[in-house]
Every structure is written in structure tokens, then in C-alpha cells.
């Protein structure tokens, strides 16, 4: 591979989804957003902006990209998916439920006593809720994803030696941009870069907000792509709401054999709900009952574009 798309995917012909498939995925993403609002309304606490912003990436990953299905959730060679910024777990739960891993009705138990849907995602309910590891303290997920990718490589190398049949897989890790403030992230990036760990691809939710404000005010990250390139990573930048781009970027990432790939997903925090979009105040709070109803209506009607909706 000599192509190193950076900031512009036009330079190669991407893998194309059919219109029919794209339509299915877009509808699923919309339902996932509605279910995020519903679960947050029931929980009365939790994060709104990040989950809404990443709904399209999660849809693409769990419905189209990652080699894992409800039927093969326990397979030894399943792709590993790690959510490193685990506070956006409402989008993970909503995606898993809509993909058929567990009943959608369970989404309203989010953050409640005895629920399998903990405030930050937990692996204690695997395989019914197929989450690989517990998350919460930022940066811990990326290190574990690096470990999972190394395990796959080690299996591959041992198979080469003794003609064994140990499983191998691809590892996908989802991260936030504010999370990159943590030094541990860069320790992990350094190790993955050193090992040319092409078995690993990460998505960064570049939504430019964190709890206290805009990322560039709190702790500037730019030039982010250059930082990754300096760490020996391949960098792809995409519109994180364009499912076609997400799928195409991962096809490219999987065919890159020299190094790990980071897909910087430019997203709008709170995407789909007008009063949440681009507002860092919505990073860490849920909608109240009234706001929730407005949010659900906006999502159902695509912000009023579908006129046939009657309450």
C-alpha cells in the first residue's frame, strides 16, 4: 500500500455499500439515537452528546464492519471491540440491543440497581451483553486493545512456527478526543507504533468537546493527525456521520499492513438533536422529560422534515 489518504478520501476508490444497505444502516442509526434518548430519560443521569455523535460509527462497526454477530459472539476468532471512552456506553448498549444481542426493552434499565447496563460499560455480563472489558478511567481501553491485537499476532506467529490453528482477529478500539489528554494513551500509541501493529484500528470521536469546554481551550490536540503520523500510525480523517465513509475507511485500514491505523471521525456532539448539537454543556447530562420528548420528535421527523408525523 502506498496510498496514505490524509484528510481526503477522494484519492482512492472506496468500497461502496449498496443504496439499499446504506438505507438500512441509516435507519438503524436513527433508531439507535432514539433509544439513547429513551434510556437516558429513564436513567435520569448519564452522557448525551457523545453517544448521539457516535451513533453512525457504532452502527457501521457493529452492523457492517466488525466480524462478530449475535450468533458468533463467543467465537474465539471474533473481532475484538473495545470502548475506551466508556462514558458514552449508552450508544454501545443501544447499538448492541438494536443489533439483536439483547432485548431493546432492557435499555431503560440503564444505570439502575441490578442492571446489566452499568453507568460505565462492564464485562461482567458477557456473553449475554458481549462487552470485552470494563471501562471508565480514560485510556485504559486503548492499552487493552493493544494487548488484544498483540495476542492475535502472537497466535499468528506461533501458528507459523508449529502449524497450529490458534485464532486470530482484528481489534477495533473507540476513543474520545478529550481522552487523549491522558498520558497513557500516548504510551499505548507508542507501543502500537513500535510494533507496526496493523491488527489494530482505532476510531477517535473528534467532536471537539470535553466536560469543561472545547478541547482546544482545555488542552489543545491539534495538529492531531500529525501527532499520530509522528507515532508511526496511518491516519484517515472522515466525516463521522457518513456511514459510507466509515466503512470505506475501515476497508482501507484493514488493508494497511505497515502500521496501525487511526480513523479520526469528525462528528457533531449531540448529532440529531438541535439544542444539544455542538454544546459542551450536554457532554455529561441527560435530557429532562420535556427535552427528551422534543429530542425524540426531532429524531423521528428528521428535524421536522417528515411532515406526516402527528402526535
Amino acid at each position, binding site marked *: 500500500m502506498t496510498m496514505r489518504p490524509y484528510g481526503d478520501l477522494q484519492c482512492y476508490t472506496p468500497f461502496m455499500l449498496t443504496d439499499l444497505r446504506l438505507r438500512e444502516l441509516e435507519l438503524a442509526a436513527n433508531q439507535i439515537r432514539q433509544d439513547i434518548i429513551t434510556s437516558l430519560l429513564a436513567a435520569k443521569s448519564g452522557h448525551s452528546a457523545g453517544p448521539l455523535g457516535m451513533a453512525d460509527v457504532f452502527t457501521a462497526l457493529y452492523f457492517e464492519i466488525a466480524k462478530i454477530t449475535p450468533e458468533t459472539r463467543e467465537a474465539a476468532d471474533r473481532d475484538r471491540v473495545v470502548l475506551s471512552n466508556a462514558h458514552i456506553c449508552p450508544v454501545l448498549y443501544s447499538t448492541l440491543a438494536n443489533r439483536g444481542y439483547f432485548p431493546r426493552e432492557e435499555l431503560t434499565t440503564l444505570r439502575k440497581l441490578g442492571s446489566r447496563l452499568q453507568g460505565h460499560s462492564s464485562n461482567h455480563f458477557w456473553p449475554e451483553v458481549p462487552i470485552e*472489558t*470494563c471501562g471508565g478511567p480514560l485510556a*485504559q481501553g486503548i492499552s487493552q*486493545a493493544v*494487548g488484544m491485537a498483540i495476542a492475535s499476532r502472537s497466535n499468528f506467529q506461533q501458528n507459523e512456527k508449529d502449524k497450529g490453528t490458534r485464532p486470530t482477529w482484528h481489534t477495533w478500539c473507540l476513543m474520545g478526543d478529550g481522552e487523549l489528554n491522558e498520558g*497513557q494513551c500516548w504510551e499505548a500509541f507508542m*507501543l502500537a507504533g513500535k510494533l507496526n501493529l496493523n491488527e489494530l484500528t482505532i476510531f477517535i470521536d473528534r467532536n471537539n468537546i470535553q466536560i469543561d469546554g472545547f478541547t482546544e481551550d482545555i488542552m489543545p490536540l491539534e495538529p492531531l493527525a500529525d501527532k499520530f503520523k509522528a507515532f508511526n500510525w496511518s491516519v484517515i480523517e472522515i466525516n463521522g456521520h457518513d456511514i459510507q465513509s466509515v466503512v470505506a475507511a475501515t476497508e482501507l485500514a484493514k488493508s494497511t499492513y505497515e502500521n496501525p491505523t487511526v480513523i479520526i471521525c469528525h462528528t457533531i456532539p449531540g448529532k440529531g438533536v438541535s439544542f444539544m448539537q455542538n454544546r459542551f454543556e450536554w457532554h455529561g447530562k441527560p435530557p429532562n422529560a420535556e427535552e427528551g420528548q422534543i429530542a425524540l420528535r426531532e429524531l423521528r421527523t428528521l428535524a421536522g422534515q417528515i411532515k406526516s408525523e402527528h402526535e
Partner: protein
Amino acid sequence: MLHPSLNPHLLSPHVEKIPTRNGYGDGLLELGESNPHVMVLTGDLAESTRVLAFWKKYPERFIECGIAEQNMMGVSAGLALAGKIPFVSSYAVFVPGRTWDQTRVSVCYSKTNVKIAGAHSGISVGPDGATHQALEDLAIMRVLPNMTVIVPCDAEETRKCTLAVAKFVGPCYFRFAREKTPVITTKETPFEIGKALIVREGADVTIAGCGPLLHEALLAADLLARDGIEAEVLNFHTLKPFDHIALEASVRKTKGVVTIEEHQVTGGLAGAVAESLGRHFPVPMESIGMQDSFGESGEPDELLTTYGMRAKDVIEAVKKVISRKQNKGR
């Protein structure tokens, strides 16, 4: 009186000395051969943690993580989740000292089968000084749910411990030391995680020890016997899960206990013993160890003497316990 399986030259002034860390290196080489799932990680300390031989023999199962311990701990959790048995090797002041959050969440809460090896533990690290003397590691590991904590007393027990934790499913922390320390046990000495071993029988006082300082406890017991005091010495190599049954059985007989460890006297072995006694069978207790202070530079022997962790200190503590016993605990 002494457990028959112990090194017969144990009390000789010319007792053979081997660094406990060598037992770790030897154990890993055995595991490399017998268990293909075992992987080893280090943070730029391959030689001094004794994992270099494993690296040379099994490069595809070794990861040099550089001086980045927090990531190393997370990587190990990821490996464990993918079916590997990772051994994280660094100095105890860094792992688990620097990686407590990662150990808490990525390892203990996520229930990953990670083995954490803390080298250069205790004040006997010596000239490197206070920053490199791990004296709090047992406390911060013992408090974590799902964690097993082990302190082997010599190189042979460290080797057995390394093999045992690989078989054991769940997070384990074990520590070893830099300096050569007396050979206390032999291949025949029993070692079972969670089961304290009576290394010397006696009825007048219980000495609960862990790590290489167990040797000072045995020397003290030998000297005490000359004064007609028969001490029962227990090797509490496993701090968690703690062997309450062994402790209670011993103190029911002796009615007094002295603990000895190369660690702060809060939160480590003394902490475990006090918690257990308070709940099951309260008796007078004295503790040998760091008395809520940091160490400093010096030769290992000088430091152990300065900070009161020698046989003579054990004897003093034993006499205190016996006098408190006679004064009904006062």
C-alpha cells in the same frame, strides 16, 4: 521443631544465599516450556527482573513495553482477555506503585488473569534509596477485590509461587527482592496459595512472617529457645486470601503474636493479622516492619538494622508480647 523439609543449614552463619528474583526467572523458563499461553512483559527492566532468559528463548511471547508501566498493565489485561497468561515484570514501586488505577479497573474489576511481579521490594533494595524501596505495595494490592497477594520467602519459594500463580485463575500480585537472601526452603517444602505453613512449632508465642525476613524470625526463635521461650513461626506467604484458620489455631495455643515483614506495619501482613485477630481471637500483638516512615540510602544490612527488622528486634517484641500477655493485654 523446625519443619523437616526446610534447609538443614538454615541457622548456620554460612547459610547459602540466593536472590529471590532468581526464582522468578527460573520459574518463567519452566513455564515457557510447559505453558504456551504464558507471556512476559517488562518496562525496560529485563535483566534486573530476571526475565531476559525468557525473552531470548521465547521472543514471540515477550513484549518490551519501554518505560511506560501504566500502558504495560493495560496491555497485560488485553492479553489476558484474549486467553494469554501475562506476567508483568517491573519494580514494585512502579508496578503496582504507579499502576494502581490500571490494576484496579483493567485487572481486578475486569477479572483478567494477569500476574503482577514486583521486583526490588522492601527496604533491602538499599543504596537506591527511599524512592525505589517498595514498602506500601502489599497494602495497595491487598485492598483490591479479586486480587491474590503472595510474598515468597526465598528463591525456591518464588519459583514455586511463579508456577502456582500460572495455574491459578485470577489476578495475582507477588513480590521479590534484589539482594541475596538465605535459602530457607527446599524443593520438598509444601507451597499452596492461601495456606500458611508452620515452619517451627512452639507454644509460647506466634511469630508470623513473610518474605526473606522470615529468616530473622527463625534466628530469633532459635535464640529465644535458649531462654526457654518456644516460638511458633508461621510462613504467611499468602497475605490474601489470608489463612485465618492457621493463625487462630496458633494463637489459641500461644496467646500472643509478633509480625515481621519488609513493609509498612499498616496494611500489609501486620494489617492482615490484626484484622483477623480482632474478628476471631484477640491477643496482644507487636509488629516488626517500617513504622510509618520512608527509607533512605544505605547497605541492605545496615538498613534492616537501622529500621529495626533484625532477630534482636523480634526477640524484644516477643518479650513485650509475653509481658503484655501476663498483664492481661496491657
